[in-house]
């Protein structure tokens, strides 16, 4: 028997196909031909640029199920695929100088990063439970290796092991949850599943149990409380560019699958609404409160990323409401853009100030006096911190505005209140960084790495500029990225 693969199938996954071929070729070229690791970095960056162009070329097309209903190219996935391609590019720009100066630049890093991005892109494309599991593993496995890339440094190895063990634990939950969902609906294809559920033929008890287990598995990936234990240690021990890349993109990938599953397929398991409510509330409270006590900037950003997962999850609590589902998706996509920009920027600053890998230049005190010597960098960092808090006119303010509006429309006043109050709490530790940079005297030592500096400044400019001028049009764009099957 032959399985027909049409050009239409390939066209639906063109950015992913291109990246896989490019990455595989690069892996060989890096071993046999390329002498300078720099060349590998540039070639992989070029690959991401091409993938971005291909993804943009997919915009505005009708939704298309491909590969016998395994994947879907709809507006939602194309939006995220473009964002992932851009993130991959930024990830390479941030990593290159850092790896070189710490003597851990090996060509496979860039290839692993490309494979990981392909996995994330597929997370946005899933139309079948098989694909969710495969995509999740495809983006996770390279990340485990990248976390341990600074071997034989003990902290990097330890972070990799912790991330791996908990990641594998989470995929166990994922697999068993998927098995139960399959048992409840007798299909792994998500569009079929929607039909079965709407016809009332699904076993609801089994479906709810399965959805809860899948939520646990994804909860590990997006780092919500109580599945967050690994986050501070892993972000702390991993090489800083890897931490920044993970903080930004792994969360996006997790939310992509979570939104598609819960908004599109599982609205019927409304029993899980209180569970999501609790996860969101706990993440916001614990993430922000624990961040206050941190003296290490990497751990501070790790706890802050947990809190931001909580903010985004609070909009996802409205998943069971058919009218608010699309709004929640748009608000979360918008917030992801704001979060990713500020996260990449802030981690870029961390990379510039880190002197010896994992040892010096990572404490908050090391940021004292930054504004005196490097006013541009300090201003950029201040913009990221303000965007994290949600101060107008940064992009983060509009992100929180749209998120909390959905939460309020859904009638979860308590949750919105927790969100606003914890944002106030977060102002304490974010503003402490700003205060240290502007008020305390100090002699910070900063790397002169034009690529990282340019990335940081560009992220700051976008955070401010998009917030000032284009927030509503960006939100309108996100609103068009509706989840659909066919």
């Amino acid at each position: 028997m032959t399985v027909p693969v049409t050009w239409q199938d390939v066209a639906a996954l063109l950015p992913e196909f291109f990246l896989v071929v490019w990455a595989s070729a690069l892996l060989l070229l890096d071993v046999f031909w390329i002498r300078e690791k720099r060349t590998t970095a540039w070639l992989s960056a070029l690959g991401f640029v091409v993938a971005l162009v291909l993804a943009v070329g997919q915009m505005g097309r009708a939704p298309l199920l491909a590969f016998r209903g395994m994947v879907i190219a709809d507006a939602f996935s194309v939006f995220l695929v473009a964002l992932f391609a851009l993130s991959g590019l930024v990830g390479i720009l941030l990593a290159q100088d850092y790896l070189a100066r710490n003597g851990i630049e090996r060509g496979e890093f860039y290839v692993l990063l490309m494979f990981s991005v392909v996995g994330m892109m597929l997370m946005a494309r899933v139309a079948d439970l098989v694909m969710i599991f495969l995509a999740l593993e495809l983006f996770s496995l390279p990340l485990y290796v990248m976390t341990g890339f600074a071997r034989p440094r003990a902290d990097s190895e330890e972070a990799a092991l912790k991330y791996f063990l908990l990641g594998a634990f989470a995929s166990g939950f994922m697999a068993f949850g998927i098995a139960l969902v399959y048992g409840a609906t007798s299909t792994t294809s998500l569009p079929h599943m929607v039909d079965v559920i709407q016809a009332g033929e699904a076993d609801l008890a089994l479906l709810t149990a399965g959805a809860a287990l899948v939520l646990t598995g994804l909860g590990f990936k997006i780092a919500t409380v109580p599945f967050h234990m690994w986050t501070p240690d892993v972000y702390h021990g991993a090489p800083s560019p890897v931490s920044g890349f993970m903080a930004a993109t792994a969360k996006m990938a997790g939310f992509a699958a979570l939104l598609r599953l819960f908004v599109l397929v599982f609205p019927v398991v409304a029993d899980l609404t209180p569970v999501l409510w609790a996860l969101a509330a706990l993440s916001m409270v614990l993430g922000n409160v624990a961040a206050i006590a941190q003296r290490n900037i990497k751990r501070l950003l790790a706890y802050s990323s947990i809190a931001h997962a909580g903010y985004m999850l609070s909009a996802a609590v409205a998943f069971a409401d058919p009218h608010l589902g699309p709004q929640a998706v748009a608000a979360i996509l918008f917030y992801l853009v704001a979060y990713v920009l500020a996260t990449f920027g802030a981690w870029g600053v961390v990379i510039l100030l880190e002197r010896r890998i994992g040892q010096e230049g990572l404490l908050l005190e090391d940021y004292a006096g930054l504004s005196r010597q490097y006013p541009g960098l300090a201003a950029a960092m201040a913009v990221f911190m303000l965007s994290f808090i949600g101060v107008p006119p940064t992009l983060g303010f509009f992100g929180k505005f749209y998120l909390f509006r959905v939460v309020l429309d859904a009638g979860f006043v308590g949750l919105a209140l927790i969100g606003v109050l914890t944002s106030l709490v977060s102002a304490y530790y974010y503003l402490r960084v700003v205060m240290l940079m502007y008020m305390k005297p100090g002699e910070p030592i900063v790397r002169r790495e034009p690529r990282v500096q340019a990335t940081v400044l560009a992220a700051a400019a976008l955070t401010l500029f998009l917030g000032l001028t284009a927030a509503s049009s960006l939100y309108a764009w996100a609103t068009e990225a509706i989840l659909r099957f066919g």
Partner: protein
Amino acid sequence: MVPTSFYIFLAALLFTIGAVAVLVRRNTLIIYMAVELMLNSANLAFVAFARQFGDISGQLFVFFVITIAAAEVAVGLALIVTIFHTKHSVDIDAMHELKG
């Protein structure tokens, strides 16, 4: 014929044993074995459901899970070997470099 629910109860039991073992055991190799147990309990549930529905896609999934588990072993054992070189131990309590 053994009813499907028996298989599912057995799978749930195996899954629970695996999950608890991950949380209580201290040796990373044992923890990884427990994770494998969790994945295989999912496999058992899949084939049981697939037989009940007379549907091939559930059995197909099992092959993917087995493949993924193999890929995970490759990465995981490499990590464990590397960390054994550094620390001369694979005990989870020996991992105390990272604290807040």
